[in-house]
């Protein structure tokens, strides 16, 4: 879709300025559904000035990712007024090739959530399939708008524990979470450094991999970034799939998701070799390990939000440093952010650190070994992306915080291991909410993930 669109622009069959006007007009109308934290009113001026192979490409960007000159506040009030003075490295790559940026998309504050509700009321994205329901989170606006728009579109999201695949599944779009470090984190506002992974959300498999190829690569500004210049190509006659037995379970999945996944597996089995694999410990302990590690990292990362160097400020006179720092954080952080800050601080405190933080870091090693074992017999691991379809905002109100963390049960294992994964929408009847199937591959095996996705998409 994107490639054909760019070709039409190149051949003069589409006028990029008219296209930008149409997209901006539609985005303004979409704003009532909460997809954007900021809309670029200069889009048409921007598109006139650009040149390059991406001339005509309009991209929206999750609020946590820096776009020069646009407010970038990770869905948080504490970063009000913060406008980055440069682009994130991945944004710079797209801009240099001629892409323009439609605006910033809504999200849970700093990425803390699976339903896009932990932010300002006007930034809570409504699912375009049913506005009473969530888009998922935390890249809620990115997936919601990509599903909403009738135009060719790419949104850049970011996943820590499932924030690309969850909203992609709930909204019926394609989400690619790359290998950890494959795309630079420079200019991505941290949630948890060892887990954050920016990646594309689009309407088709071809679109997300087209963009991934442009944004991947080692970046000297991010020492944890790396992508092999020649990824290992294993020549295989046929890909071998494995499904996770613990996630193909009617006790874990909603009835609807269970039967949809069963149907999809049958179709894949009709053409490919599919075997049952076990990720028992990942499913049993993944949410705990992820919770402890991500909240611990969060609690140190958010220490910098003190109301001093950027974002919200208060008059500093007549206040001690601690009072000023505590007051502004208490006033501006959302409840879920406070909860995670408290839990993360607790897990690192003297007396608890060994039992929680260090034990979880050791457990992470063991959980990865379980994946390594599974990948000895299969190339691609399959499971439903989410245990249920998008819940309504009313249903979410009845869930405890712990129950909400389980929305990412099917996604935290791959995120903890830093493995690339792809959520593809399953075909559904018109009156049904979308649901995604998740494909996971080995580190740096995005090419294999692409081939697997293309192979099964026609079958589903």
């Amino acid at each position, binding site marked *: 879709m994107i490639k054909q669109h760019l070709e039409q622009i190149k051949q003069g069959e589409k006028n990029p300025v008219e296209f930008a006007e149409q997209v901006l007009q539609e985005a303004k109308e979409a704003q009532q559904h909460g997809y954007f934290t900021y809309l670029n009113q200069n889009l048409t001026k921007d598109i006139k000035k650009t040149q390059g192979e991406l001339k005509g490409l309009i991209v929206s960007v999750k609020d946590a990712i820096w776009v020069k000159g646009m407010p970038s506040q990770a869905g948080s009030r504490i970063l009000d007024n913060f406008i980055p003075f440069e682009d994130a490295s991945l944004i710079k790559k797209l801009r240099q090739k001629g892409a323009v940026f439609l605006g910033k998309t809504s999200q849970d504050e700093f990425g803390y959530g699976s339903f896009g509700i932990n932010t300002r009321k006007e930034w809570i994205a409504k699912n375009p399939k049913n506005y009473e329901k969530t888009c998922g989170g935390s890249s809620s606006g990115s997936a919601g708008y990509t599903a909403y728009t009738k135009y060719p579109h790419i949104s850049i999201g970011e996943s820590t524990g499932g924030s690309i695949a969850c909203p992609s599944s709930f909204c019926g779009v394609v989400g690619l979470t790359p290998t950890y470090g494959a795309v630079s984190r420079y200019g991505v506002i941290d949630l948890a450094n060892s887990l954050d992974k920016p990646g594309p959300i689009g309407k088709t498999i071809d679109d997300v991999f087209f963009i991934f190829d442009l944004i991947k690569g080692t970046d000297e500004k991010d020492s944890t970034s790396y992508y092999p210049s020649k990824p290992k190509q294993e020549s295989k006659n046929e890909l071998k799939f494995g499904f996770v037995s613990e996630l193909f379970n009617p006790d874990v999945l909603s009835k609807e998701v269970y039967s949809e996944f069963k149907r999809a597996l049958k179709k894949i089995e009709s053409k490919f070799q599919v075997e049952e694999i076990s990720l028992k410990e990942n499913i049993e302990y993944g949410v705990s390990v992820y919770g402890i590690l991500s909240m611990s990292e969060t609690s140190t990362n958010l220490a910098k939000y003190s109301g001093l160097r950027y974002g919200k400020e208060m008059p500093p006179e007549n206040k001690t440093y*601690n009072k000023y720092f505590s007051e502004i954080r208490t006033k501006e952080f959302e409840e879920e952010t406070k909860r995670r800050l408290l*839990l993360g*601080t607790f897990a690192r*405190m003297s007396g608890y650190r060994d039992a929680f933080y260090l034990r979880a870091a050791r457990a992470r090693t063991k959980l990865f070994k379980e994946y390594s074992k599974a990948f000895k017999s299969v190339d691609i691991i399959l499971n439903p992306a989410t245990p249920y379809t998008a819940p309504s905002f009313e249903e979410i109100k009845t869930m*405890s915080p712990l129950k909400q963390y389980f929305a990412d049960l099917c996604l935290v294992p791959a995120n903890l291991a830093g493995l690339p994964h792809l959520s593809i929408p399953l075909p559904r009847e018109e009156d049904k909410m979308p649901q995604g199937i998740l494909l996971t591959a080995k580190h740096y095996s995005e090419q294999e993930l692409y081939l697997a996705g293309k192979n099964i998409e026609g079958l589903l």
Partner: protein
Amino acid sequence: MEIDKKIIEIVAKNARLELNNSEKEKFSQDFKEIISYFSKLENMQLTDEKPSFHLPKLSPKYREDIPSQPLGRKALLLIKNKEDGYYKGPGV
């Protein structure tokens, strides 16, 4: 594990958050449920596993130590609490 308002107060002080009584009560209840679930990690058999702080394991390649253009005072441009090119903050 005993989780009470006292622990929440200590944690909140370390996290630089000021909680009112109803928040202390609410977060105590949430802590009980969440920490109780996280504590199940005690049942996981661990032997010689070393902690993983990043996956995949990477050997960071740093750029050469050559001076380059620093950000300078660009970061100061957006804040209001400044004086003579310095941040203006509360007393320590």
